């Protein structure tokens, strides 16, 4: 009896969870809808969730994904729904499609509906999008890269790990965003993720490319088919030597491409400091200083006032 009740719950309980996630996205981060126009979609989501859950609860069959422990094969089984109404068409797939269609629209409400957000709200949205991107990437790796390999390989578990990190990252990002704890760290985090993500991918490519190339050269020279240990050693040494120069290049590229203003500001300040060491003309320095402030901080107005020389001499005489 207990097993049947659990089976029945399992058949439809995911729909309210999905509905709640839709509302989470719609109301994030300030607890209000992005605008009045999103009200219709909110009502539609509530109706679809309610009707979908009811239809799934009375559907005649229950679908279940299981892993056979004897052969580790992923199988889909269909069982009769203990509370299903006989004669009703199996509505699992249409209901699933309809409910899942709400997700992308709700996700769009975060990006499109709140595109005019500034300041704190913008940072909060960045946190959610960052976690969402990791979750999405994990799912892509798991479902489109590793799953087609068929069996439960190590790659699938890597994909699972990424999904788990993204899945846990979602609520953590929401917590940081709402409680505003280290809210402004997101820019650094995104920057580091882009740099180290690109660096890892490049090094993996170099490593496997190096192993394959060294192996091919070795085979061509010696005629032996066995993969030499030398290929692995050479590739490891190459990626160790490449790590820092590649990291600096990628960092520089990311800064120029995505953080253009900050990058320019840093460069401008660097150039000004270098000029300060050699320049002795006060007027030229004053002009440069105002120029640097305008360029890096972009204030509405900037001017420099220097105390007149006579007054300072008189003060010294006193």
């Amino acid at each position: 009896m207990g097993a049947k009740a659990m089976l029945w719950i399992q058949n439809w309980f995911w729909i309210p969870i999905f509905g709640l996630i839709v509302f989470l996205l719609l109301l994030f981060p300030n607890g209000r809808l992005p605008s009045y126009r999103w009200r219709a979609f909110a009502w539609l989501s509530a109706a679809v969730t309610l009707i979908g859950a009811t239809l799934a609860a009375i559907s005649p069959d229950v679908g279940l994904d299981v892993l056979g422990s004897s052969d580790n094969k992923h199988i889909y089984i269909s069982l009769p729904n203990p509370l299903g109404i006989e004669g009703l068409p199996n509505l699992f797939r249409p209901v699933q499609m309809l409910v899942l269609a709400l997700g992308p629209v709700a996700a769009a409400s975060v990006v499109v509906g709140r595109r005019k957000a500034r300041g704190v709200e913008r940072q909060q949205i960045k946190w959610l999008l960052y976690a969402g991107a990791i979750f999405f990437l994990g799912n892509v790796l798991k479902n489109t890269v590793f799953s087609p390999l068929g069996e439960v390989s190590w790659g699938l578990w890597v994909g699972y790990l990424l999904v788990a990190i993204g899945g846990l990252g979602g609520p953590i990002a929401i917590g940081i965003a709402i409680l505003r704890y280290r809210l402004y760290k997101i820019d650094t985090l995104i920057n580091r993720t882009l740099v180290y993500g690109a660096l890892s991918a490049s090094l993996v490519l170099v490593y496997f490319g190096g192993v394959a190339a060294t192996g091919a050269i070795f085979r061509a020279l010696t005629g032996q088919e066995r993969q030499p240990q030398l290929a692995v050693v050479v590739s490891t040494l190459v990626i160790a030597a490449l790590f820092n120069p590649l990291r600096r290049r990628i960092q520089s590229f990311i800064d120029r491409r995505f953080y253009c203003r900050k990058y320019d500001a840093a460069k401008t300040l660097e150039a000004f400091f270098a000029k300060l060491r050699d320049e002795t003309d006060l007027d030229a320095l004053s002009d440069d200083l105002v120029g640097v402030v305008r360029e890096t901080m972009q204030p509405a107005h900037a001017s420099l006032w220097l105390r007149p020389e006579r007054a300072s001499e008189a003060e010294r005489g006193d």
Partner: protein
Amino acid sequence: MSTRIASWLAWAVCALSLALTALTFLLIALILSLNAPIYFYWLEPTTIAVGYAVIGAFIASRLPSHPIGWICCAIGFTGAVEHF
């Protein structure tokens, strides 16, 4: 609702969700020991149940008037029940 009651309620929901998740793992261990087929997608529901329940309790106990905290609590709890 006062902050004290909200905090108590949020953490109670969180504790219930975590207890259900722990029981789920106990059942999974039992099923594995019997060498029987097991529910395949256990990792995602676990992260949903644990992650949302804990963060929901944190947010709801500090900002009881903010709906996001309570939605997270509800996601965590329903996720734990569904997983169980």
